[in-house]
């Protein structure tokens, strides 16, 4: 996706304003007390209390059913076992414990960072004291695996069921067994299905790994089937098959009706949700842009204001910032592979940053960076340094990578060499440009133009073409037979004018 640059900038500008103002206000707040805000005594006391009695939440780990008992234990500072026992005990005669459990389950939020108080124990002595007083041995909460929990759940459920049956029979409700069994089945199914809802992150619900996901779906399906079976048994007790069909048809009709009525609402809800998510994504992107502009453009603008008296520095800052912003706006995710073109462009930017002279860079084609390429990049850099030091702007660099080889031209508009000779102080040019290129099988020429000097550098085509047997060094890379004269022509001319 390519973002139209202007609208993006404009949208960012408004965000930027807000961002800037916001940052300003915050700074103002902090200004009077730059080191540390003193904590008001009331707040401190509240914090202490909070630390001593952790919030009632259900931990995601170490739970048996839904983690209500553990959460309650942490909150009250009692041993978990007692609480579990109490739940079971008050469940047996009337089922009140069950109701309470479900009630707490529904109302208690799940904690995010695993077990409550676990992280705090190390840092907060008050909390540690409370825990020591409460239970002594900390629950092996994290160690309890899924298998363990399931086992305990099964055993507990079974015992609960047996107890209920026994109590019911004692009370002379023998005939109700027909209801009780399906009811238990429904409850078990519901627990299984609902326990999925508990994993608040959708990631776990859908499962990031296929294994977890399959397990989740299986659990959900099993729970659903169990609950449905229970309901059907309950509803069809003692009726004929025909009656069941009738009821089934009626139920289906009702369900279809409900679905029909609810569908628009559901759709609307879904689209609202999607819209909200898109909005959020956009807001995030906008915040990213604002942050980037704040770090780059605003800083540079501030610097420019401070250096307003120095035109050279201002130009340099503006150029560097422009380049940075441009690459951020237009360049996609750059591939990490070093290529010749990117290396040459980078060298040009470096020289520009060093001397503040704008360099117009134009490049076409590209190829991987090899030894010869490295030499070319260094020679280009040296030529550019010469151009900005001894020549006059505009300085331009043209790089062409094609099947006939690599050519680079560095041009300035200075007075050039006196008398067409390379002066004494520029003997380095011979070594760092001419010599270097020749060592790598390339060539370099310096020529004087009417206005300025042009250094042309060339490398032969990549000698490691896809096809392993090069027949002829000059025409290997599938170059059309008609082209060589045009490709060679400028080089020939330059040889003639070689300084």
């Amino acid at each position, binding site marked *: 996706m*390519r973002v*139209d*640059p*202007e609208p993006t900038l404009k949208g960012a500008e408004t965000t930027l304003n807000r961002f800037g103002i916001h940052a300003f206000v915050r700074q103002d707040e902090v200004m009077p007390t730059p080191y540390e805000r003193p904590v008001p005594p009331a707040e401190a006391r509240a914090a202490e209390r909070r630390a001593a009695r952790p919030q009632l939440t259900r931990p995601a780990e170490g739970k048996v059913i839904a983690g209500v008992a553990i959460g309650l234990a942490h909150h009250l500072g009692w041993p978990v076992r007692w609480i579990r026992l109490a739940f079971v005990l008050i469940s047996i005669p009337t089922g009140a414990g069950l109701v309470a459990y479900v009630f707490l389950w529904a109302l208690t939020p799940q904690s995010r960072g695993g077990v409550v108080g676990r992280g705090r124990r190390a840092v907060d002595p008050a909390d540690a004291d409370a825990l020591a007083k409460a239970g002594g041995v900390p629950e092996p909460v994290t160690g309890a695996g899924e298998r363990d929990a399931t086992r305990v759940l099964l055993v507990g459920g079974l015992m609960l069921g047996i107890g209920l049956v026994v109590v019911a029979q004692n009370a002379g409700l023998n005939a109700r067994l027909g209801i009780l069994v399906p009811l238990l089945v429904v409850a078990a199914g519901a627990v299984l299905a609902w326990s999925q809802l508990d994993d608040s992150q959708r990631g776990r619900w859908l499962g990031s790994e296929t294994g977890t996901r399959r397990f989740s779906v299986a659990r959900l399906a099993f729970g659903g089937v169990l609950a449905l079976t229970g309901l059907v048994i309950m509803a069809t007790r003692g009726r004929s098959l025909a009656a069941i069909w009738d009821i089934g048809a009626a139920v289906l009709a009702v369900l279809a009706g409900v679905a029909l009525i609810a569908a628009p609402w559901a759709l609307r809800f879904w689209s609202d949700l999607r819209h909200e998510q898109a909005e959020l994504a956009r807001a995030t992107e906008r915040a990213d842009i604002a942050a980037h502009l704040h770090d780059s453009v605003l800083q540079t603008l501030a610097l420019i204001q401070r250096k307003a008296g120095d035109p050279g520095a201002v130009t340099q800052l503006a150029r560097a910032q422009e380049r940075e912003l441009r690459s951020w706006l*237009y360049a996609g995710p750059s591939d990490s592979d070093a290529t010749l073109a990117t290396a040459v462009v980078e060298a040009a930017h470096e020289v520009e940053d060093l001397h503040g002279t*704008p360099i*117009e860079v*134009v*490049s*076409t*084609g590209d190829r991987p960076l090899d030894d010869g390429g490295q030499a070319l990049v260094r020679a280009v850099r040296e030529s550019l340094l010469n151009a900005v030091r001894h020549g006059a702007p*505009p300085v*331009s660099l*043209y790089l*062409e*990578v*094609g*099947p*006939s080889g690599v050519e680079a*031209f560095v*041009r300035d508009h200075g007075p050039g060499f006196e008398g067409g000779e390379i002066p004494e102080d520029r003997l380095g040019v011979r070594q760092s440009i001419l010599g270097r290129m020749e060592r790598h099988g390339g060539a370099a020429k310096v020529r004087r*133009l*009417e*206005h300025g000097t*042009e250094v042309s550098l060339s490398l032969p085509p990549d000698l490691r073409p896809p096809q392993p047997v090069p027949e002829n060094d000059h025409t290997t890379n599938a*170059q*059309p037979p*008609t*082209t060589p*004269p*045009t*490709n060679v*022509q*400028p080089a020939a*001319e330059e040889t003639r004018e070689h300084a």
Partner: protein
Amino acid sequence: MNTPEKKPVEVVLVDDHRMFRSGVRAELGQAVSIVGEAPDVDAAIAVIRQAKPPVVLLDVHLPGGNGNGGIDVIHGCKGLETVDGQPVRFLALSVSDAAEDVIAVIRAGARGYVTKTISATDLTRAIQRVADGDAVFSPRLAGFVLDAFGAAAGEVAQVDEELDRLSAREREVMRLIARGYQYKEVAKELFISVKTVETHVSSVLRKLQLSSRHELTAWAMGRRLL
């Protein structure tokens, strides 16, 4: 071509940044007279239709219209002629040198493309060149052209009329422009007249506008031109 005796070229300046407009107005000398300004697409079309200038300096990114900026202005002024019977010509001007923007605005009909960092003298020269019906290529645009026509990769047209490739001479001219040569220097380098250089550049411009090369159409598609 740069004769000071000529009467000033009338120009309409279209740009949504007021600061930039006043800057250009202050910079451009006697050779150019600005007869109108507009900050957005709709105002631009109205002003250009009324003033009928030989040259419009057109920002690529503009608010209004169908959201395509300068391209909408060019489309909105299609077929418009000056009092002398010359077509109204557009010189695109932008901070962006993204290939999509450049190629798209040229294909829409602009006679040339320069970046906003151009010096005042170069801009004046470019305006005069466009007024004379020639094309204006910056080094970067020449680079794009070499890329887009596969010229850097060695593709060369067999006959000059071929729209999808550059002829050998056109390629040479483009390469020299990309190296930062002025038209005059190109002419000297290739032992041809400046007029011939201008002819080559205009023919490249025509190919750029009419060719159906995949690269060019893909770039134009990016700006919803086709």
